Structures are given as C-alpha cells and as structure tokens.
C-alpha cells in the first residue's frame, strides 16, 4: 500500500467517533493554558475532544481561575445545563483551594459543584489537563497507536 493511501486511511477512516464536547468556564491565568489545549501544540481535537460554547451540548466542564460571587453563579448555572453524565475538571489552585489570595470570601469549586478531577499547579501544564481529561473516561477516538489508558497511567507513575 502506497504511503499516500496509508496516510489517507489514517485520517479519513471511519472511527466510531464520539466527540467528547467540553464546555470551558476558564478565567484568569489558567485560561491561557486551557486555550493551549485547542492550539496547535497540544491539540486535543485529535483525541476527539472539542470545545463548545454552549453547556447544553457539552458533558464535561473545565473551570479555572479565582472564584468570586459572579463567577460562582455562572458556574452553578452552566453546570445545570450540562448533559446527563456531567463531569467537572478543576484546573489550577485558585479554583481548587482558593488559598493564595487573602480575600475575605474564599469559594472553592468543591463548595459549588461536584468536582471529578483536580489538576494541581499554578498554572498546570497542558499535558496535565489532557491527562486529567483522559483519567475521567475512555478516550473518544481509537487511533491504532493509541495505547490504552492503563499503560498511560502506569508509565506516568
């Protein structure tokens, strides 16, 4: 088989494609790292994960940045709109532990919504975010070189 055909098959073969749609509620410095996920270096669309604007069509929510009152309401509202097996990923310390800035009111994400996966770091590396999303479920797109989740976890220690 000519390399061209092989390349063609590689890209356009018909996977049982389930696109994992993600709604992003990112704020602050971690938002820039979250944007990296759809940029060219750490492109997660090759894993079948796509960012969408509307929470109703997403089943995974990424939250990052310092949670103040207005942002808290927004998170709760968007969480309600998520599809049925909804999961939330907390990115960075501000949303997880809200401890670094001395304001009188400290809201942690866990106080608002049930959080599925935490990513420590300030800001965490994009690989950590990809790893966090992969931890949550079986990857949407099966490419032939994709090693299964368990091996990935083991190698990472």
């Amino acid at each position, binding site marked *: 088989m000519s390399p061209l055909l092989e*390349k063609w098959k590689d890209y356009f073969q018909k996977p049982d494609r389930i696109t994992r749609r993600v709604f992003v509620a990112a704020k602050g410095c971690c938002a820039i790292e979250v944007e990296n996920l759809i940029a060219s*270096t750490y492109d997660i669309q090759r894993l079948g994960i796509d960012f969408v604007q509307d929470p109703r069509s997403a089943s995974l929510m990424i939250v990052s940045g310092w949670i103040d009152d207005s942002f808290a309401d927004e998170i709760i509202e968007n969480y309600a709109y998520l599809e049925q097996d909804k999961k939330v990923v907390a990115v960075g310390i501000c949303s997880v*532990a809200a401890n670094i800035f001395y304001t009188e009111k400290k809201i942690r994400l866990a106080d608002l919504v049930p959080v599925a996966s935490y990513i420590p770091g300030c800001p965490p590396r994009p690989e950590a975010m990809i*790893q*966090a999303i992969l*931890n949550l479920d079986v990857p949407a797109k099966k490419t032939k070189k994709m090693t299964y989740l368990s091996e990935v976890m083991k190698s990472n220690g």
Partner: protein
Amino acid sequence: MSIVKRGNLKNSWYLPAILSGLGITFKNMILNLFGKRKMLTLNYPEEKYEYSPRFKGSHVLTVKKDGSIRCTACMLCATNCPADCITIIASEHDDPSVEKYPIAYEIDTLRCVYCGFCEEACPVDAIRMGPEWQMPGINGANFVHDIRQLAKRPNLKGGVVSVLDEEERHKAGI
C-alpha cells in the same frame, strides 16, 4: 498619535491582504500533510516532552549519601511558603551529629502554587522542584505527598543526592 498612510494601491484595496493571509494557512496545511514529523503537535499520551532541570515541577526531597533524608526540619520552607502548604513534624535523631530530622514532611499539592520559594529558603538543599509536571488526580486521590512520595517515588530511582552534604562540612571544620 498614529501615522496614517494613504493612497497607494496595496492597502487601499483589501484583496492582497486577504490573499497573503490565506497563503500562509495553505502553506502550513500542505507542509503538515506531507511532512508529518515536522508537525508541531505533541501527541500527548505517546510523546512526552523532557523538561529541563530548571522546570519547577513537583517537589523532590533530596537524600544524603547514606540514603536518609537530608532535611533537618528547620521549618524555613514552611515559613517562606506563601500558600502554607508544607507541614513538618520534627523529632530528635539519636546520632548527635544529625540531632534533628523530620518524622513527617507533607506538601499539600492542591495548595502549592509551585513558586519555588521553599527551594530558595532551604539552607541545605533538602528540597528541590523536579522536572516532572504536576500530576493530576481524580477526586479523592491522595494529593498530600509525604516523605515516601517526595523522596522515594519510583521515577526518582532511589532518591536524588543532595549537593550539600554534612560529612564534608564537618571535615572542613565549618
């Protein structure tokens, strides 16, 4: 004040600008189609970056030559930490030349902002920021890393030996 250039053909008409933009996009598409190796994307689970030692990743508690923890529980890192995420419990070591060592040294990675202040504050190079990036975990995983995790985790291969060792210091008479 902005300098306004007017009148010449190139920028009074939009088409050349659009075409040059699209040109770049196509150039990259063609390149990526055929030159897969030069592509920028890191296929994360299979390929991984090797970060430089300067990278402020997850902590490493260095060890002495004989394998025991180099930290003397002087609490300077816990004091210097802006996020108060280090808790240390010190106790007496039976060897009088060591005298004090930590029986518990915990870093709450969910509070730590990885700023490296602890590394700067440590007088004896007992704690370092390793090149591995911060490991995420599902809810309920153990984020509070203790001595076993910080110093003896598998990929440290037996612990990182501290640069500043006591024996030389005592021999040199300091």
